[in-house]
């Protein structure tokens, strides 16, 4: 035994770390050289052996890098040639994956923007939203105008020990005037501790402070949002001390909030914050206006309008805060006599943001999320299926490669590279798709009037990475299956009969079934939304919106007092009525269906009736009912005689009439609004929708706009055969009556109602688009499977045809399995859709979740498409000339 034998053995073993080419080539020689140096013995042997081992270890990665660099251009050329030689299936895989990834990324970016992004305040985790529970079964409800009454907030604030601070806010649309230009801005009226509780210091000046909300109307100060500061004041730091006109009151600018601060909202950003004791100074009307004696809004316990946000004491859980809240509520109830909310819920602000009025939004977003998750699943299933089909076709090719000496590793490396190419192409395409879908989303509005276009919506790269990871994983795994199978195939058999093995046939059937089922679920969803959209567009509003146009003016912005406003209103209606083609014209403060302020009404001549009737309200002109085509069922409509100074009159709808007059004789009865003003009912009108498309039968009361002239937003309505032209006529009439008055939002009423159906429209478009796509992808999968079966059994089919087999038998032979799988998929899809339909129930108008028309309407075309795809592919089998097939053997 020569010296250094052990070192040679060690080093030889280490050669396994190297690429095969080097191991079999220069590797052995390199080891010998190491050993030569060792034997030479001119330096310490131990050191030489150590250096040899380190040197061999550290050289391995470099050799690998060189090997890959030397190999991959040729491999890549081979792979690209293989992919482009028959580009159909690879192209479908890439497009499918790109759509799945792109749609997912876009929708989840939206979900992130609307629901998940934390509120930009200090330590948002310890903030809680506090809700009033009006009905324990229904959970927390915060309709637009009901929260906590101001006095209740003042009672709670000092008593709750579980909270470090309890703040309140209320949003209002307010006329804002800067430099003579008027606009409408969302202004938040906040408690003095609001900024302190949220932990947001101003970037300039000071925030609203507790001293600002001690005395009503005493502190007209305003904190600007960054947006308003930039837009109107060019970020001038000298803005402090200047005034900002909000409604009729000049507010002194005392501070500027940091950029990005949007209070406790997730989507809307108030333009400015004012102390809530300045409510009356904003001219919001109703209980906030000065027309009621004293400060009704600070003392009235009947109407909750404040939203609460609290900061938990360190270490206190929301549940403990809720218990503390119940204790305080029980404590203050007997003391005040009137009924404060009996029960309130405390939830983390992030979760709270997903509750209450946002419930529809959350449900809708959840629906979108479910949809795109399904689409990603479908994309992966389709890609897997197509890769299996393609792999089946290639077992022969790969078997031949194996027979020619390509090792399993080399085959796998090639197929991996091929899959990687597919995945890379899909990634690039998916970014394009994602950006496209984001742009498409921007044209829609979410429930809660959230304009997606106004959100800061960009592709979320984390989601993109996740979706790409899932899709690439699928491609890599299913792309490798053919290589594994090919390496098991006996090369001789591969030559002889191109065996495609039945091993993946079962899997292929399952994948077809899954694709059909997913497509069917999406298509049924689309059907339900389309049906709802149609039902919504034809729903009974109590009037026909078709011939009506509407436009909006807001006279107080232009400095009109009530006398001038009254003249303007009379002029506009008069001018419109005299126009040819316009059947009637009117004014109203609310165009149904739209969110409306509600107030409690108490029957004045029925003292026994303790419970006030909660009714929405609007101010209208005499021609209102004629314009909308709503019949007066008792009494009269308003007339020119109902003017300022004449006895106060009101018209109620049938629902309010029933509630206010148990004997059915509403006309002539009197009631008190907000316990203050007395009105006499002069007429009863047929019910119409009030706030939503489906609330026909909600109590509503009409007041005479020419009797109590309002200076807020007023809509001018015109009835005409051509509402689009009528909208133009309203604009002209407004300009003629007051050249400085801006007439905005002139449009047919159907446009506005169409906007209310946005979720349905959105759902129809998205689900319809993706459903059709899913069906197309499934059909391609079926075609590919049947085509593969045909190619697989060419010889057998040829022999059968030669022996006189019927066309039907041949068809069953090649397409039978796929057809069975498709049928199974339909069954599965129907079952899943039947369950899933209940999840979207809240978005369905006049449509049952299990709507036969939608279910049948989705199933029939899908089955037809599947049948067509398999027939087209199977037809090729019938064309095989028998002799040709046999010769191929």
């Amino acid at each position, binding site marked *: 035994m*020569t010296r250094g034998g052990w070192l040679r053995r060690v080093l030889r073993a280490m050669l396994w770390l190297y690429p095969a080419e*080097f191991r079999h080539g*220069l590797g052995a*020689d*390199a080891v010998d050289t190491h050993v030569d140096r060792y034997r030479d013995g001119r330096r310490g042997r131990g050191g030489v052996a150590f250096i040899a081992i380190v040197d061999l270890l550290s050289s391995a990665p470099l*050799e690998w890098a060189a090997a890959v660099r030397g190999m991959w251009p040729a491999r890549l050329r081979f792979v690209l040639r293989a992919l482009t030689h028959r580009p159909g299936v690879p192209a479908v895989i890439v497009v499918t994956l790109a759509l799945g990834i792109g749609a997912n990324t876009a929708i989840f970016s939206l979900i992130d923007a609307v629901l998940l992004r934390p509120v930009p305040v200090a330590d948002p985790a310890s903030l809680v939203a506090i809700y009033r529970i009006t009905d324990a079964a229904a959970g927390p409800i915060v309709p637009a105008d009901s929260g906590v009454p101001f006095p209740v907030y003042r009672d709670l604030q000092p008593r709750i020990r579980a909270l470090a601070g309890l703040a309140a806010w209320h949003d209002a649309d307010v006329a804002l005037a800067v430099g003579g230009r008027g606009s409408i801005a969302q202004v938040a009226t906040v408690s003095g501790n609001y900024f302190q509780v949220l932990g947001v210091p101003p970037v300039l000046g000071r925030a609203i402070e507790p001293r600002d909300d001690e005395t009503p109307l005493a502190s007209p100060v305003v904190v600007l949002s960054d947006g308003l500061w930039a837009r109107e004041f060019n970020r001038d730091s000298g803005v402090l001390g200047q005034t900002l006109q909000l409604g009729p009151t000049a507010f002194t600018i005392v501070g500027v909030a940091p950029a990005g601060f949007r209070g406790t909202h997730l989507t809307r950003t108030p333009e400015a914050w004012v102390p809530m004791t300045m409510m009356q100074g904003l001219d919001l009307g109703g209980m906030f206006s000065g027309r009621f004696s004293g400060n009704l809004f600070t003392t009235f316990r009947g109407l909750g309008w404040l939203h609460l946000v609290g900061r938990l004491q360190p270490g206190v859980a929301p549940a403990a805060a809720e218990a503390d809240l119940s204790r305080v509520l029980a404590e203050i109830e007997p003391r005040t006599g009137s009924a404060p909310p009996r029960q309130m819920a405390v939830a983390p602000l992030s979760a709270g943001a997903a509750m209450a009025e946002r419930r529809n939004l959350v449900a809708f977003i959840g629906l979108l999320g479910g949809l795109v998750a399904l689409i990603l699943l479908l994309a992966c299933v389709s890609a897997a299926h197509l890769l299996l089909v393609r792999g089946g076709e290639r077992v022969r090719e790969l078997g031949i490669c194996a027979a020619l000496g390509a090792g399993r590793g080399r085959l796998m490396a090639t197929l991996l590279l091929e899959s990687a190419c597919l995945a890379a192409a899909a990634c690039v395409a998916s970014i394009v798709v994602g950006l496209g879908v984001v742009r498409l989303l921007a044209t829609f509005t979410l429930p809660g009037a959230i304009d997606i276009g106004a959100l800061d919506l960009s592709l979320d790269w984390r989601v993109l990475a996740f979706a790409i990871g899932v899709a690439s994983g699928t491609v890599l795994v299913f792309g490798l299956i053919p290589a594994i199978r090919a390496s098991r195939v006996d090369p001789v058999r591969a030559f002889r009969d191109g065996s495609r093995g039945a091993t993946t046939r079962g899997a292929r059937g399952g994948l077809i079934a899954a694709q059909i089922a997913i497509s069917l679920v999406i298509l049924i969803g689309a059907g339900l939304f389309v049906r709802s959209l149609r039902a919504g567009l034809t729903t009974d509003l109590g009037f026909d919106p078709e011939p009506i146009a509407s436009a909006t003016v807001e006279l107080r912005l232009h400095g009109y007092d009530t006398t001038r406003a009254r003249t303007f209103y009379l002029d506009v209606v008069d001018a419109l009525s005299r126009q040819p083609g316009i059947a009637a014209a009117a004014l109203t403060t609310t165009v149904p269906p739209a969110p409306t302020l509600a107030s409690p009404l108490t029957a004045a001549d029925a003292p026994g009736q303790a419970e006030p009737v909660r009714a929405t309200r609007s101010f209208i002109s005499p021609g209102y009912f004629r314009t909308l085509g709503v019949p007066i069922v008792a009494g009269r409509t308003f007339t020119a005689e109902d003017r300022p100074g004449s006895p106060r009159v009101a018209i109620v709808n049938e629902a309010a009439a029933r509630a206010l007059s148990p004997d059915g004789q509403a006309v002539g009865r009197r009631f008190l609004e907000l316990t203050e003003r007395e009105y006499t009912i002069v007429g009863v009108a047929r019910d119409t929708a009030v706030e939503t498309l489906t609330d026909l039968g909600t109590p509503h009361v009409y007041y005479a706009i020419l009797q109590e002239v309002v200076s807020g937003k007023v809509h001018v309505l015109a009835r005409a055969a051509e509402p689009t032209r009528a909208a133009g006529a309203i604009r002209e009439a407004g300009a003629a009556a007051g050249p400085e008055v801006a007439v905005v939002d002139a449009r047919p009423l159907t446009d506005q109602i169409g906007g209310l159906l946005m979720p349905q429209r959105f759902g129809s478009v998205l689900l319809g688009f993706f459903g059709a796509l899913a069906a197309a992808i499934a059909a391609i999968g079926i075609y590919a499977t049947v085509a593969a079966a045909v190619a697989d059994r060419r010889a057998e089919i040829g022999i059968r045809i030669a022996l006189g087999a019927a066309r039907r038998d041949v068809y069953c032979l090649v397409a039978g399995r796929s057809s069975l799988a498709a049928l199974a998929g339909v069954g599965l899809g129907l079952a899943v859709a039947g369950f899933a339909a209940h999840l979207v129930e809240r978005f369905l108008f006049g449509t049952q979740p299990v709507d036969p028309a939608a279910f049948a309407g989705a199933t029939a075309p899908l089955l037809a498409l599947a049948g067509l795809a398999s027939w087209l592919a199977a037809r090729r089998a019938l064309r095989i000339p028998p002799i040709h097939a046999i010769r191929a053997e």
Partner: protein
Amino acid sequence: MVVPSPESFLPLKTDVLLVLLVLARRERHGYGILRDVERRSEGEVRLHTGALYRTLRRLLADGLIQESDRRPVGPDDEERRRFYRITPLGTAVVTAEVERMSRLVRAAKLIRAGKDPRLV
């Protein structure tokens, strides 16, 4: 097959030039190359074995050297040393590189003498 021009390999790295210069004199096996480089640089240049074989692999691939047919059997049965020898292309590359360097040296001398020669 297109034969690449010797100039396309220039400039050579010091290791590469030394290996080629060693092989230009006579055929050597791996350890022989190491020893020669060490000896002729008087111990200043010490090639690591891994680096040497990376250089050899590249030179073989580029056709500047080739394996010799000589395969003397060593003391051990399995020891069949590979010998490497320079190819005509390798010789041309070395010549071109030496020419390039001497031009550079000439130019450097002229510059030091205050002239303004062409550099390359």
